[in-house]
């Protein structure tokens, strides 16, 4: 029957089965490619992959650092500051729009328009406006996520029932307290949900930019190793990227449960 629940055992078994199936499919694909060309590097065998992993994790002779560590550091710092400024800006703008009809009328049209432009298309514009240094990554991510997040904040503020604002006033709240203690508390979990969704696109802009102008970072390494046909490095890096995204998502969910325990309880 449609929608019928299954036992937990099945859940786990099927999940593991799917992963196994993927691994088996890859092994077959790789074996077939190596039958054609024993020296193939594009679909590396498991032993080639472990070589690639070693290369990424060990201290590199020439640069004297561990690739994965250096890249993870660079990429996550860029992502963090980009998202940080994007979130700060969107909170400010979204709050102002939600609270003041003047700001709303002024900012809504451009924001709605900007939210529809994929920032990847703006990459060239960011190179021109923000240079090619670390500021560029941060600016790009910040502006990339800002329109959508600001809209989320704005809509979340609008969703707060007027009664709750009135109520808070009757309890002696100041205007600032309405924003800080009522609206912000309402907006936070929804903002975190939106950030979770925006991390994906933010990573896309970041990796794309790193591929073009980076001298360290996941995107840089993947492009370089791709050109050198070292897919045994590229694939583990892609897995690391997936884990990276997964980790961020997990952390954000934990953060949400911490700052807004009420939200998870089915408000």
């Amino acid at each position, binding site marked *: 029957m449609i929608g019928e629940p299954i036992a937990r055992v099945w859940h786990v078994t099927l999940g593991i089965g799917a992963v196994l199936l993927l691994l088996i499919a890859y092994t077959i694909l790789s074996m077939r490619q190596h039958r054609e060309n024993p020296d193939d590097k594009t679909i590396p065998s498991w032993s080639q992959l472990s070589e690639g992993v070693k290369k990424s994790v060990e201290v590199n002779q020439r640069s004297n650092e561990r690739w994965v560590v250096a890249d993870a550091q660079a990429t996550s710092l860029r992502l963090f500051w980009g998202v940080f400024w994007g979130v700060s800006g969107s909170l400010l703008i979204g709050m102002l729009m939600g609270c003041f009809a003047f700001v709303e009328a002024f900012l809504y049209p451009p924001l709605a328009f900007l939210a529809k432009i994929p920032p990847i298309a703006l990459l060239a514009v960011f190179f021109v406006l923000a240079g090619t240094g670390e500021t560029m990554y941060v600016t790009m991510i910040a502006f990339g996520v800002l329109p959508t997040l600001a809209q989320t904040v704005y809509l979340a503020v609008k969703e707060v*029932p*007027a*009664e*709750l604002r*009135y*109520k*808070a*006033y*009757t*309890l*002696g*709240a*100041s205007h*600032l*307290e309405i924003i*800080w*203690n*009522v609206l912000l*508390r*309402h907006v936070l979990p929804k903002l975190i949900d939106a950030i979770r969704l925006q991390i994906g696109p933010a990573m896309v802009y970041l990796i794309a930019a790193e591929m073009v102008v980076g001298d360290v970072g996941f995107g840089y390494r993947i492009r370089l190793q791709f050109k050198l046909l070292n897919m045994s490095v590229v694939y583990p890096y892609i897995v690391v990227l997936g884990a990276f995204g997964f980790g961020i998502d997990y952390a954000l969910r934990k953060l949400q449960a911490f700052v*807004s*325990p*009420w*939200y998870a*309880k*089915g*408000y």
Partner: protein
Amino acid sequence: MDQPASLAIDCLSHGFGTKPVLHDVQLRILRGQIVALVGPSGCGKSTLLRAIVGTHLPRQGTVTVFSGNSHLTGHVVEGPGRDRGIVYQHYSLFPFLTAVENVAFGLMLDQTNISYRLFKFPRWLKRRAEHLKQAREFLDRVGLGSAASLYPSEMSGGMCQRVAVAQALIMKPALLLLDEPFGALDEAMREELQRMLLGLYQENLAARRKGELEPHTMFIVTHELNEALYVGDRVVGLSQYWDWRQAGHAQPPGATVVYDCSAPIFEPDDTRDFSCFAGQREEIRDVVFNPDSAYPREKHLRYWQELEQQREAEPAP
């Protein structure tokens, strides 16, 4: 004994666009009363309530609230303020706060400000503990001591409304406004909450006997006639059906107070016998709710007269 006034509404008129809603509303509520406001749907009950809360100010006329701990001073309503508590039918509680936090919310907002809470954090924590203790006492009073740590989404509608009442009461408002507070509840739950209000009224009577200021003054908007007569000690009817042609209007000028009489007083433990006020109920139906009735608007405003008679009957202490 002379009861001071808690609320005075003078010459209040309001309308939306060109459509008049309220016409020349006059109302005076005394300290310690439970006034039930009834009227046909769309007559402007909520508009009147909003004018009192201060979120939507009237076009004409004033609302004056008298507040204070021992000596009452009046001021004209210009916006929502901490001297008037409100319990809405929905959205009375903040979903992101637990029951006890909801009750303590007013103490926090009223007694501290953001910079105090941020920059004098240790002191705030101590203060916070006091607030929560006080809030717990209030929760106990509405019978919800055990639900302190539940979020609104985890409580039933009736529990939420009890918490909402506690949340408003902790501010010791000069006037507690209730906007169809039990409209969304089932019958049993509603009865329980009505008894709770009657319990609060008993606190008023006790305070009056001791010669103190009555702690609770309530203005409850309801569409339920039985509820109005059962809970209120005075019923006010707002209606657009009155003899406005006689008063010289060419167009309907809007609703005004057409009924104002005292209601029987019940104690929480009394059996709920609605038959005893069947006559008054029929009268209100006719005067307030019947579109074909056209009585002069002053005809059924008997309250002040009745009060006078009552005082004469009661020997002065």
